[in-house]
């Protein structure tokens, strides 16, 4: 009975994804959306991959990581080098980038995830910076000048597909036994350990999976704007992704999706106030933390109950929710 319910949930998620895709694709075909719009939507898709994967670490496992842009850069560079210098086709190159980022995530995860809370945050920040400095010093990938001549292979379709895959994989992990272990670590690490959960193993797992997706997102990004340099993946990029997760609600996948979309569109809509963007962001971040620490959309109930149920509930009153986020 529960099996069947789970399956229907996934079917609903996939159904919604297909529906949204059809709407967007048709809007593009009939040129209601111009190239500029498509670019924003593509970036929103890449940000969804980043935010949802980071949510696995920050929201579900409760370990604050400030180095997601570092994994993104590993994926971006490896995928770009694979396609420029080795002539590997786009998709395998992307996967290669993802694998490389996963390996780095795993390597970083093992020693650092024994740390807790603030120390972990600073260490991941440090690793992000170390990765950036390393890329600056590797002449093979252009050093500080960056890597040019990456073929434009990323399309809206592929980003959309991979975003859906990311969401499905993450939802799947959350709803599995592993997901419950991750959540127990979030709630109380010592108690989880006492219950026989190998906390380091699970944290490394979450870290590795999230890093892999970040790497893929990096590859997509590189193949979309055709140029990367170490600066595009600095500390502020990591913070951007953290803001998406936090605003949407730590542990709420649907929250991450919505806030990625809103926070990608918002700066474009507010272009004439671009100087004030970070001021507004940071003020919003502080206010959200003070008045609604669980994020705008995410509350604990939402994250614990089935993700599809959440989607279903949101879908029922989607308009209301959308209005709520665009005001924020």
């Amino acid at each position: 009975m529960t099996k069947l319910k789970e399956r229907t949930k996934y079917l609903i998620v996939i159904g919604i994804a297909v529906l949204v895709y059809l709407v967007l694709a048709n809007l593009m075909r009939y040129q209601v959306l111009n190239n500029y719009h498509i670019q924003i939507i593509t970036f929103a898709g890449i940000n969804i991959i980043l935010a949802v994967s980071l949510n696995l670490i920050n929201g579900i496992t409760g370990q604050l990581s400030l180095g997601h842009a570092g994994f993104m850069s590993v994926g971006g560079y490896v995928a770009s080098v694979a396609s420029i210098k080795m002539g590997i086709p786009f998709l395998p190159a992307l996967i290669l980038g993802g694998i490389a980022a996963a390996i780095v995530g795993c390597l970083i995860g093992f020693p650092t995830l024994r740390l807790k809370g603030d120390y972990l945050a600073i260490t991941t920040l440090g690793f992000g910076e170390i990765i950036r400095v390393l890329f600056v010093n590797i002449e093979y990938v252009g050093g500080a000048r960056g890597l040019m001549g990456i073929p434009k292979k990323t399309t809206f379709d592929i980003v959309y597909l991979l975003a859906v895959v990311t969401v499905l994989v993450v939802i799947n992990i959350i709803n599995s036994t592993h997901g419950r272990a991750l959540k127990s670590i979030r709630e109380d690490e010592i108690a989880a350990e006492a219950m026989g959960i190998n906390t380091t193993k699970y944290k490394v797992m979450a870290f590795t999976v999230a890093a892999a997706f970040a790497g893929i997102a990096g590859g997509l990004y590189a193949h979309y704007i055709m140029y990367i340099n170490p600066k595009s993946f600095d500390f502020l990029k990591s913070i951007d992704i953290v803001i998406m997760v936090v605003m949407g609600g730590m542990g709420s996948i649907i929250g991450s999706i919505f806030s990625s979309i809103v926070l990608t569109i918002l700066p474009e809509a507010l272009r004439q106030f671009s100087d004030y963007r970070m001021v507004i962001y940071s003020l919003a971040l502080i206010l959200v933390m003070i008045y609604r620490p669980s994020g705008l959309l995410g509350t604990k109930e939402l994250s614990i109950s089935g993700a599809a149920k959440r989607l279903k509930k949101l879908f029922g009153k989607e308009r209301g929710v959308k209005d709520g986020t665009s005001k924020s």
Partner: protein
Amino acid sequence: MMVFLQQTINGIALGSVYALIALGYTMVYGIVQLINFAHGDIYMVGAYAAFFAAGALKLPFLPVLLIAMATSAILGLTIEKLAYRPIRTAPKVTNLITAIGVSLLIENLVRIFIGPNPRSFPELIKVQIINIGSLQINNLQIVVFSVSVILMLILQFIVHKTKVGKAMRAVSQDKDAAKLMGINIDRTISYTFAIGSSLAAVAGVLVGIVYQRIDPLMGVMSGLKAFIAAVLGGIGIIPGAMAGGFLMGIAETLTKGYISTQLSDAIAFAILIIILLVKPSGLMGKKTSEKV
């Protein structure tokens, strides 16, 4: 050997700046268990306050220093009151994200209102180079070192001999018990922020004098390195922060002298990771186990 000595001297001067910033981190962390991410920006604001005091008001060194300290202390108090106090009992992650938010806010406000470009700091003290053999020491380095040592001694005095210091130590040991003993927790935390912030301002002024260049993002990297210095020495321990600051400064200048300028930031983080893996409580820290 000469290069080594010269770099060590430069490192001590740089390290005293890190030590001053690290003191604020370590005091705040010791008392509220919060990495005050905005501390680096308080240091930056201190430097800017000095820039305006010295540039527009043409004041000499000491009044400039005091104005910078006062500005930063007020900023630190305001931040604590508006942003950190409402979430003092919230989970650590909430606190940390708020601190990041405050840091971004200060940086961007300064960028908008004062301008994103670096400013050149007025020359408050004439540079004189003293040669000892083939070693070069300039008087600025001596000023930086002596000012920071004096301040650290004053801080040690405050923490160990005054009532405020006793209250601070009591609160950092056990908030609830301190409260029961009649200590005003809020006020003690405010004092801690004020003292820590004014020390950061001194660091800002000293950096302005030595490097003659300040910009709105100068606090980010220095702040992180100072935090690493605090962790290196053992967070919450004041002599540890000083030692950590000097070690970080020396490690950085030696890296610049022998390996590469660009890698010096990476070295700082590598030190952090190694220290956290080998001795997470820091060089001077005692081992504590977490309460269940």
